[in-house]
């Protein structure tokens, strides 16, 4: 890490970001900051628009409104919403992974990591022409790129399988490989979309180690979407909570987990049982417990949150991620309303009761 840059300099500033698909507001006026050298987590119930935020930051979507500024450590600034898709990783040095893994499954692990160094190698090969005639510059760059790939394979504990096709790896290893591939682009900001989804506790712990290691040794800042609270609470320095495309909380993991709005967003406020939980807001483990052992009514469906649909739903075309905010669906707003008109009347409760399927606390809305 460049020591001259102050630690708390913001690497990514999202200001008044809105993303509308037709009449649907997937993200509404979202502002947050990710600091350099920190791990920032973006959490929220399913369908909260987290992946949409990622797609805006990495250029897969052009936001309807707002500004996304990236400050590189060499002092240059990029307005990400104006850069073409492929220049965001190339020039602004933002790398990302995908919710459902997108590896080049027919290529070996090593090749996957070499493809990630495409732009560097293109320059070294004189845009193919010099390399075609066997100039030594390219051979040197090629050897260096293999070394870098080997370095990241070792970090991801995959070096033994370097010559196997990526599609042959077990799930957890594919997740690590995708992170290693993103790191091979030499990013300053690494965006991870649910890196722990589908991992067993051991793999999840290995992932935590890898992420901490990336943060400490490579100097890359990390922005991650995660449902697994054990990952979020253990490694993140800063948490931003979204619900229905709006930010409902922002702060340290400790402050977020005790925020009644967050608890409400995750657990809902309408059910009697949860009402009682809400009264015990002081209990810090509420989120964690309910997240680790999800029941069918409140927790994320194992399949819906871990491997929610093909990414083409969220990337390929804009009709994929539909977020309909039914009136009174936002639990965080209800908490606000409740705290302002402190003792709720029975009539109010009756209006809040009818729920659309999309207004369920968690799961199933994607």
């Amino acid at each position, binding site marked *: 890490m460049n020591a001259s840059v102050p630690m708390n300099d913001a690497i990514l500033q999202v200001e008044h970001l809105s993303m509308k698909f037709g009449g649907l507001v997937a993200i509404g006026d979202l502002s947050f900051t990710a600091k350099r050298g920190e791990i920032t987590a973006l959490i929220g119930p399913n369908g909260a628009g987290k992946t949409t935020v990622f797609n805006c930051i990495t250029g897969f979507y052009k936001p309807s409104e707002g500004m996304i500024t990236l400050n590189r450590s060499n002092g240059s600034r990029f307005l990400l919403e104006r850069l073409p898709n492929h220049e965001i990783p190339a020039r602004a040095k933002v790398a990302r992974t995908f919710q459902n893994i997108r590896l080049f*499954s*027919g*290529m*070996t692990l*090593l090749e996957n990591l070499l*493809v990630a160094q495409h732009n560097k*190698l293109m320059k070294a090969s004189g845009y193919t022409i010099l390399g075609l005639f066997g100039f030594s510059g390219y051979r040197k760059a090629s050897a260096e790129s293999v070394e870098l790939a080997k370095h990241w394979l070792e970090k991801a504990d995959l070096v033994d399988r370097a*010559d196997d096709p990526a599609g042959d790896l077990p799930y957890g290893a594919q997740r690590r490989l995708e992170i290693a*591939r993103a790191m091979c*682009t030499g990013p300053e900001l690494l965006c991870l979309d649910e890196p722990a989804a589908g991992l067993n506790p051991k793999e999840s712990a290995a992932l935590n180690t890898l992420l901490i290691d990336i943060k400490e040794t490579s100097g890359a800042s990390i922005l991650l979407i995660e449902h697994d609270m054990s990952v979020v609470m253990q490694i993140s320095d800063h948490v931003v909570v979204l619900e229905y495309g709006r930010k409902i909380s922002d702060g340290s993991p400790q402050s977020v987990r005790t925020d009644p709005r967050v608890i409400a967003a995750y657990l809902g406020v309408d059910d009697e049982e949860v009402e009682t939980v809400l009264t015990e807001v002081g209990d810090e483990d509420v989120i964690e417990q309910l997240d680790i052992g999800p029941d069918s009514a409140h927790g994320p469906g194992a399949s819906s949150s871990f491997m929610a649909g093909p990414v083409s739903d969220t990337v390929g075309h804009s009709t994929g991620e539909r977020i309909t905010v039914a009136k009174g669906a936002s639990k965080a707003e209800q908490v606000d309303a409740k705290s302002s008109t402190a003792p709720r009347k029975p009539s109010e409760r009756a209006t809040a009761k009818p729920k659309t399927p999309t207004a369920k606390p968690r799961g199933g809305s994607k």
Partner: protein
Amino acid sequence: MAVTVNPERDVVATPMQRALREALYAGAISLGLFVLFIGLKTGQNISNELVLTTRWGLLVAVVVATAIGRFLYVAYGQPFLANQKIADVATGLLPASAASRFFQLPAFIVAVVLVVLLFALNNSLAGWVGPGAAGYLQFLRALSVIYVLACVIYYFRGFIHANFTKLGIAALILYPILVVAVLSLMSWSIVGGLQGSLKWVDNYGIQILIYVMLAWGLNIVVGLAGLLDLGYVAFYAVGAYAYALLGTQYGLSFWILLPAAGAMAAFWGVLLGFPVLRLRGDYLAIVTLAFGEIIRLVLINWREVTNGSAGISGIPKVTFFGLMTFNVSDPNYIAKVLHIAQSSAYYKIFLYYLILALALLTAFVTIRLRRMPVGRAWEALREDEIACRSLGINTTTTKLTAFATGAMFGGFAGSFFAARQGFVSPESFIFLESAIILAIVVLGGMGSLVGIAVAAMVMIGGTEVLRELDFLKQVFGPDFTPELYRMLLFGMAMVIVMLWKPRGFVGTREPTAFLKERKAVSSSFTKEGHG
């Protein structure tokens, strides 16, 4: 009795019973299929009236043949294959056991003797046994040659497998020399050998190599970058007309126009690519198909320049790098310069080596490019385009380079084609050509150079071989022309290969880089691409 067991359920039909039943079914199905196709024939009589001829005898023959075929397959074929499988597993000779029974030394010696005898007596055969039997004997000779070659390949399969590329290139380089040598020996004269080699070098060698080169060029677009291009023949046409027009109008040399034709085809590739490459999958295929047709229609209708359907004739021949020519009237005609006998075979042999060099250049560039970042980006694009963009790869320019590189090799092949034919017309650049080239790429295994070369040899060589089967006239009557059935056989071969090897002859992928050892990537992991 509460539970009754139906005794008939437990009796497993013997293979014979099953075979009889299936033979009946097959006969019934073929009867239903062919009753109108074969049983009835419409024709005209002398006063132009429609008449219906019935051919019940032929229909019965076909149906009975189908039933017997099915019977034999179920009664004997299937049990044999099943036993073979068990024997293979038991003895551990998985690929060897059936084949080693088929390829045995005594049979090999008999075949060699047959080949030598029949070749030695070639000229006097017809006089002894009559032309009909001579045709069969020639077929027998061809079968023996194939058997001998198959035996050699089988017993040296380890060696051949290890050195396939080197052996293949050596065989291709020696091919014209061998053909001339064998034919000279057969006719006891060098001139006769040269004259006889024309067919083998031109119809087989050059024809196959043109398709090998085209398929290798298309392989860059379809096999590596995963962009389905149904109009590849357009670039072939651009190359051919570039040489034909510039060569006839300005008298420029082939050696100048070869790179020019490639550049022009690449330029058209980029021009087509710009609007088209944001399309994916089926849409891209349809637009490239349309582009191929547009080019052909422009060639037909722009008469002032292209001479329309009549085509361009009198395209100059290729010279031997300007040192010697292949025109008999020129003072520096090759036979005059080298003081050898006149023959048109020199030009064909020269063209053979020229197209071999061009094809090998295509292969060399493809192999080099695959190990370069751009080649890896092509393959990554085929695997996952969105992931490519997330890694900072400019997918538009990457696709364009694939299109342009593929088109360039199509243009080279086109200018060679024009020089070889001496005549081009839009007839040569129909959609069927694109389809055949694409079929070769798919059959060979997308991305695999060796597989594609083998597929081109089988497909193009196979259709040429059909011309040689004269003895079939004895069976089906003098009107029978086996060439007419080549598309049927082509289609059948494709269906069989696709059922047997869905990813083509060579489905595995060779990695472009490795840390410890190079392991082929199984076809179950590679993708075909979406655009």
